[in-house]
């Protein structure tokens, strides 16, 4: 095997490994576009991974496994929606509790199936296209769910930015009052999109337990912590599907890089490179919020008119603005 083919195989593996994260990040992007933060991601990925695997193991059907995962993800998200939309509790509080609860549920209920080998998603090379040099290996010699992961990015982008329903979605997360005036049922739609986003994120779990890291290994499954990373990438992705997917691929790439470079850097464990999304996220948040900080506002006021206007414009351009109503409950009056 040539170095080149090893590299290519590695990169293809990166896309493969990133696929579940892409699903989760796209799902969370949709949920947050509607104005709801689903902090339970860490737990629901684990729970849907375990649940999908168990169902698949019991029924022998991969399809049922994936559907179970989506259903679990959706259900958990609906609890967050219910607590925050109808009961007006803090989205952060509920999401955080669910993250821990669902994780422990997954370990507990998954105990019986631990270590068992179950159905595994087979690879599915597309006949002609996969023989194209480079591109073929990367994009067309994957499995079904990875193809879906490519598709979901495009579909999400089309939906959010090119359809009326997507426009409405953006509206309720941006300025629910204005949406309400135009007849949108803000609360109902928030429920809907939280469920949809949750379902997509719920597909990420089975993608691990039935494909990328087949099987359920409980506490050493290596899945704990991924949910938090998904949340970080969502922010980095600026609530835009393509940028979010880029973040997911970048993260998987860094993970792979860590593994590859391990032999040449014996003293440093791979985990160090894996925390890279977080400084990136913090940096993004810093730039996003720099325009709003009070001391910046006051320094701005002291500048002469022209400089002030220019500085204000620069700050505005740097912003990767979250949906303005993110996290805030909608009060009709």
């Amino acid at each position, binding site marked *: 095997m040539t170095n080149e083919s090893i590299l290519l195989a590695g990169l293809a593996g990166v896309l493969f490994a990133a696929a579940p994260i892409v699903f989760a990040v796209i799902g969370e992007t949709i949920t947050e576009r509607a104005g709801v933060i689903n902090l339970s991601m860490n737990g629901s990925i684990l729970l849907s991974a375990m649940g999908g695997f168990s169902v698949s193991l019991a029924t022998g059907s991969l399809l049922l496994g994936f559907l179970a995962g989506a259903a679990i993800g959706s259900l958990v998200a609906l609890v967050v929606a219910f607590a925050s939309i109808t009961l007006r509790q803090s989205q952060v509080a509920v999401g955080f509790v669910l993250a821990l609860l669902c994780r422990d549920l997954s370990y507990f209920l998954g105990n019986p199936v631990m270590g068992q080998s179950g159905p595994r998603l087979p690879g599915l090379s597309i006949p002609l296209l996969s023989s194209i040099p480079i591109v073929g290996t990367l994009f067309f010699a994957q499995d079904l769910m990875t193809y879906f992961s490519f598709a979901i990015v495009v579909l999400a982008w089309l939906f959010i930015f*090119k*359809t*009326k*329903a997507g*426009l*409405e979605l*953006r*509206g309720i997360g*941006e*300025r629910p*009052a*204005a*949406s*309400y*005036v*135009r*007849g*949108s049922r803000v609360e109902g739609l928030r429920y809907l999109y939280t469920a949809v986003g949750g379902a997509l994120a719920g597909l990420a779990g089975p993608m691990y337990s039935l494909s990328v890291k087949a099987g359920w290994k409980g506490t050493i499954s290596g899945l704990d912590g991924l949910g938090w990373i998904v949340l970080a990438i969502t922010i980095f992705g600026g609530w835009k599907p393509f940028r979010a997917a880029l973040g997911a691929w970048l993260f998987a790439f860094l993970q792979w890089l860590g593994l590859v470079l391990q032999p040449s850097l014996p003293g440093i464990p791979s985990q160090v490179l894996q925390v890279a999304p977080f400084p990136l996220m913090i940096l993004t948040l810093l730039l996003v919020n720099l325009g709003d900080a009070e001391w910046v*506002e*006051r320094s701005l*006021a*002291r500048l002469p*008119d022209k400089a*002030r206007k220019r500085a204000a414009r620069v700050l505005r351009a740097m912003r990767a*603005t979250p949906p*303005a109503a993110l996290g805030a409950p909608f009060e009709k*009056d």
Partner: protein
Amino acid sequence: MMTGAAEGANRLSAAGDSASLFAFPLPGRRKLLYSVYKFRHATALESAVAFRESPMRVEFRAITKTFGSLKANDAISLEVPSGSIQGLLGENGAGKSTLMKILSGFISHDSGEILLDGEPIRIASPADAIRRGIGMLHQDPLDFPPFRLLENFVLGAAKAGRGLKGDRGRSSRGTKLARRDFGELCARFGFSLDPDAWVDSLTVGERQQLEILRLLWLGAKILILDEPTTGISLPQKEKLFATLKKLASEGMTVLFVTHKLEDAEFLCDRVAVLRQGRLVGATARPFSSKDLVELMFGKDVPRTERRRNVPGHSVLSVKGAAIEGPRLRMEGLDLEARAGEIIGLAGMEGSGQSLFLGACGGLVQPVAGAFCVDVDENPGERGRRGARGREMRDLTGKTHHDFRKAGVAWLPAARLEQGLVPGLSLTEHFILSEGMHGLFVDRKRAREIAESRIEAFRIKGGPDSPIESLSGGNQQRALLALMRNPLSLLLIEHPTRGLDIESTAYIWSKLRDRCAEGTSIIFISSDLDEILEYSDRVIVFYAGRVSPPLDAEALSVERLGGLIGGAGWESLEGKGSNVA
């Protein structure tokens, strides 16, 4: 003027989309099918002229709405014919917004009726309102700043029951049609709006234009505008007025809510004045400003003999200040406030008084000019300010806490949101305000302070009761009781809001006592009588213009009311540099 197709389309839309085709006689059926086809697949431009083909008149009958103990609308009856511009005048809290919120579907009235074209109807929601042809342009247009104009234009159109019927939500065809309609409507009214621009790059006037176009496109037959001329430039205002006049001449029913006399007098065919929830008068052209002011603010009441303090040394000095707000800009502000003096800031809400007051307290940063506060280096014995050690320190750009240290206090209008901490007791508020320090809370001393203040300000509430359990009036007293002593400058927004006459008089007696001790007070009030009764000097704010300080004794309710509504500013020119 009405084509067969349009007529058929109208009949259909009037009868409901599920009207049976077979109700119509056979020969006309083909024509009708064609018009149905045309309506469903034509652009919505036809609906944008619905007001022309079938104008709608609106009537309010004995509309009443109560919020708790406040009667916001008290049996208001008003008829507005189609094709006219009806002005709605009144000061803050008169009930204009409530009435318009009822008509536009945000809230529902308690009793009375709303009739559209003579038929009583019940409006369930804002979306329901627009479906019936009632469109409202809010003071801050309810649009989506991060989106493009065209997206704002089409968002929600399908739900309004008009717009593009054949459009199944896919971009190309629907958006193309919308784009074309947008362009045609723009051309018709002479607006120059780029459908691909972002809304947050537009001026307020342009956002209004967009919203008007959108409401027209959705088939509005009644257009409500809430204080539209706040914060727009003169050419934009002229364009807006020209547009409204044109719409009205073609049959649109326009409701124009404002507090600005000159706008109402120029634009409206008829004017109705609301005061304290009641309709106190309605006139048609020609208008008399004098009469309108009297209707809005009431007559002059003989004032009590006022004891004037001899103003002492200068406490606050504002020179050439410029303050920028979200919708206005004030320039050339000058003020010299002296110890023992009371200065009232008058004007409609949003005219800049709050910004100015905030700037005097360091909460708002001016973009130009200087704010200097007198700082007594050696505070003399209580109540007497030593002449030595005094200096005017330039505090421009400093924080509110720096102003506080210099002896300035600011009491906000939004009690529970900005001035008081829910969950803390009265005593705890005093602990904070007095700046008591140390390690462990001296509960005994705190209680003593609290009890003495409760008595002094007649607050109905225990020292340990949480602040949110107090009634609104008592919260207001508590807020005032938090004033420290001594203070060189006291800045109060609406000192007696929510208090009855007796409490108002009592509070003012306490404030006057402070003045006698040397404090200077600057306060905002929307009650003209309060302004004229207690101020030594008055500054009026109107749409970014600021009057020079006027002597209160020489000011009549009529003149003050006029200034607040925008009349009589010419006579001020040359008297000071405060006109922007």
